């Protein structure tokens, strides 16, 4: 019988050796800001996982808040690939790309006021009172929406796919078309919503468009992963004349250009998706420079690349988003205008854009 007990004892051994780690993880704290934060962080999330989030930062209190949407809306997730945000009147329009929607929230409470269904939206820009344009990826459509009734009122069809960013110029919207087969930006009459003209860039796949302090236009083109070398075109929007053109090295992949508060220095990120140190970091150039910068103003290191860039229009501080591979919560680094690091804080997955409340 002793032998039988021994067998049973051995059979029961695993019962005493399991359960080493408590399985239930701590519940993440979601907080809403007590006052008005001055910076919002658009966190894309991880594609296909529905975990885009909106975070906020109060620079005076050095406090981070998030996930704002979930906190204010009964723990509902915002959606998949939170691409951009824009304030129109008393609402923030949150563009959630892979959830095919724009979520409209109140600027004070962050509670959802409406949603607008649009396939693969990217960016939104108010063109007139009660009216905004929404660009999309994978299609050639720019949607015209009514920002009061939250409905789609019209569509504008571009000659090529992937309408991306828009800027306003003298009663017109200038729309880029991030299509590797295209090299034009399109001039749309914001009253008639008709394309009236187009302007040729020096490189294909125009992506980002900005206006400098001289009222001139800078267009960043290219799609390095798809073999289209990046170019920066400086042009006069009144005539369409190209004033200057800069071609990046073929391995450089510049993204997310922004101007400093005085609109005379252009900052952009170069992202090495393959994890190297070449063409990695934050670069800057004066609008009067005649060549692209060759060394980073703030260098990235191996296996790290930056993905979000913003400059506070009030104090000129530089905010940089590090997505840490898009597989974990991102970090935001804060630098002084002279390039010295001040602090860092943790945000949601994949910080992609900054929105400064003072910029509205």
């Amino acid at each position, binding site marked *: 019988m002793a032998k*039988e007990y021994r067998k049973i004892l051995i059979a029961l051994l695993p019962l005493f050796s399991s359960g080493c780690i408590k*399985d239930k*993880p701590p519940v993440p704290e979601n907080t809403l800001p007590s006052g008005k934060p001055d910076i919002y962080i658009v966190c894309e999330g991880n594609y296909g*996982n*529905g975990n885009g989030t909106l975070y906020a930062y109060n620079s005076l209190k050095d406090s981070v808040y998030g996930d704002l949407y979930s906190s204010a809306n009964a723990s509902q997730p915002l959606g998949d690939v939170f691409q951009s945000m824009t304030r129109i009147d008393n609402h923030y329009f949150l563009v959630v790309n892979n959830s095919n929607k724009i979520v409209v929230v109140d600027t004070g409470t962050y509670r959802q006021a409406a949603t607008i269904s649009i396939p693969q939206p990217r960016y939104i820009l108010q063109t007139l009172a009660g009216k905004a344009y929404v660009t999309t990826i*994978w*299609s050639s459509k720019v949607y015209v929406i009514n920002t009061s009734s939250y409905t789609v009122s019209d569509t504008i069809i571009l000659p090529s796919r992937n309408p991306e960013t828009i800027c306003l110029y003298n009663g017109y919207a200038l729309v880029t078309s991030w299509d590797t087969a295209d090299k034009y930006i399109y001039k749309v009459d914001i009253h008639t919503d008709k394309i009236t003209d187009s302007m040729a860039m020096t490189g294909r796949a125009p992506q980002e468009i900005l206006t400098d302090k001289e009222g001139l236009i800078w267009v960043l083109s290219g799609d390095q992963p798809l073999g289209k070398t990046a170019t920066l075109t400086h042009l006069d929007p009144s005539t369409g004349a190209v004033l200057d053109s800069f071609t990046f090295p073929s391995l450089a992949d510049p993204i997310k250009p922004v101007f400093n508060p005085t609109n005379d220095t252009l900052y952009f990120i170069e992202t090495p998706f393959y994890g190297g140190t070449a063409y990695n970091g934050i670069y800057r150039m004066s609008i009067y420079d005649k060549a692209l910068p060759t060394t980073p103003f703030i260098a990235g290191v191996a296996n*790290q690349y930056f993905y979000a860039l913003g400059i506070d229009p009030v104090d000129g501080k530089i905010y940089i988003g590090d997505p840490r*591979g898009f597989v974990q*919560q991102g970090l935001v680094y804060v630098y002084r205008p002279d390039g010295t690091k001040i602090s860092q804080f943790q945000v949601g997955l994949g910080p992609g854009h900054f929105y400064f409340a003072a910029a509205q």
Partner: protein
Amino acid sequence: MLASTQLLCAQSKRDTPLKEINVKASKPLSNDSKINYFSPGQQVTRLDSATLAAYQFQNLSDLLAQKTPVFIKSYGVNGLATLNIRGSSAAQNQVLWEGVPIQNAALGIADLSTLPVIMMNNVSLVYGGSAALWGSGNVGGALVLENERASFDTNSLHFSLASAAGSYGQTMYSFKTSITSGKWFFSAAYFGQNALNNFWYTGLTGLRHQLTNSKLTGNSGIIQLARQLDDKSSINLSAWYQEYDRQIPPALFESASYKYQQDNSLRLLGQWHKGFNHLHSIYFKSSIIKDDIHYSDAYVQMITQNTCYQYFQEAGWNHKMEKYGMFEFFMPVQISWMNAQNPTVKGNVEQTKTALAGSYAINFYRHKLELAANCRQEWLNNTPNFTSGANASYQFPWWLKLRANIQQTYRAPSLNELYYYPGGNTSLKPEQGWSTDAGYSLNFFLGKLEFKQNTALFYRDIHDWILWLGGAVWTPQNIAEVVSRGAETENKIVYSSGRGKITIGLNTSYVLATTKNSYIPNDGSIGRQIPYSPRYNGQLNLSFETNYFTFCYNETYTGYRFITMDDAQYLPPYQTGNFRISRDFIYVKHGYQRCSFQLSAQVNNIWDQQYQVVAYRPMPGRNFLVGLRLNLHYFTNKI
């Protein structure tokens, strides 16, 4: 007799005065010598024919999720389902059909949701990496699939026809046959299925929705023809074709989906075996596989076509040396390629793995102590890579078997990881590391109760773990060192009497798979559980069987799964119950003919749990399936 033994119990009925006896008989775990002879110290779970029959209308992902302590990462209905053994990634496990790796060469993974159980006669799960024995990709373990072993010198016919229908428009139909006539053997199996999968689920806002864009049509057929050339040699040809048309339903964060995927696979295999005497034998196998995936998303006007090919051949020589054990030398060659027509690669891409491998097994004390050692020199294109390993088992006393296993392991990057456009990374290094485990098997009787237990403790350390990172462009990178350790148990108590058999089974798994080091600056994943690798996982299986009646109940528990590398986001545990009942009607005309019907009914997710295995992919609630199977057996004496 070198093979692992199983205990076959012949027990007396209650009204007979005979004392019960235990008959110990040799029964090979597999047709594969790598399992039978060269893995005595590795934990191997073989799913018996009764279990496979009970899952005849389901796919391998359901079978493994409910019957083994592994985690199946399922992206919901019509979605990908991959294997996670001991915290491995999907690409770190091999799926082998008759010894041939059948993972998609581009993806490096096999979708278990498209592998019907009925296609196979033997399914074995080998835990723990052993790249020296099985080759690149064997990090977590291997799923070994085998067809019916060809038998000769009889005249026999086996035929079964089955059909099932159930909730959400499920219909399935299958047939399976094998014919032996003298020196010839032929077998065929077919499985077809259709489903609407339009079940109701709870959306993010708490409202109920009906799943859309979720239709499935699948066809899978396999034929095998074998000829005995002489007393010691035979040739065997097999062809396996399958096609799956599946709509991909929307994730919870999508209002609608227009995604569609079509998978076609053709696998051809030829095998030749010749024995010279009882000491020598040689074999050769050659296989070519074409995998075709067509994916479209009408919503965003995206269409991709991905076709990849794989050629595999292996020649081997097995020599038994009477008192000095057995060795086997084999030379596997695997060539994978994609041509320039694929929009996902630029130009023709190819990967060649050529290897020289040797395994040696010896036993002492009349098979009480079994030892095996393996080594392999593999050239990945032209880059050499040496792996080795050893394992042992010791049976002491008869009811207790101790096992130990230590293996080097590695995985070469897949074609997509190297060449996918855009994002592929040609400078990726292979994942490599060590895998060790130890454990024991218990098997003893207390009266009419039989106790079986397998317990394993494991530790695995993998360097240069490959992970896809990125936002706009996803790129695989060697990012980390990941350590997995934990324990698995498989417990079973069987009560047998003349009237029937009651079985209680409990499988448990505890896996701590954490990032130890990382190349990513400020990485928040250090010390954290890797995504989609539950720490706790278990199944309770109850069954009651008589000659005509079977009742089975399965309860599966899966613990928290983290979504992110820093464990900031996670999914709650889920627990599902599955119930199956069947009744056999057996008609025997005379000794050589047998005809039977089986009527079965099953309820899956009986407690109607609303759960997700992968974030935002709803799983079906309670659903029903009723099936009917006809079996015919005809055989004569040996001719």
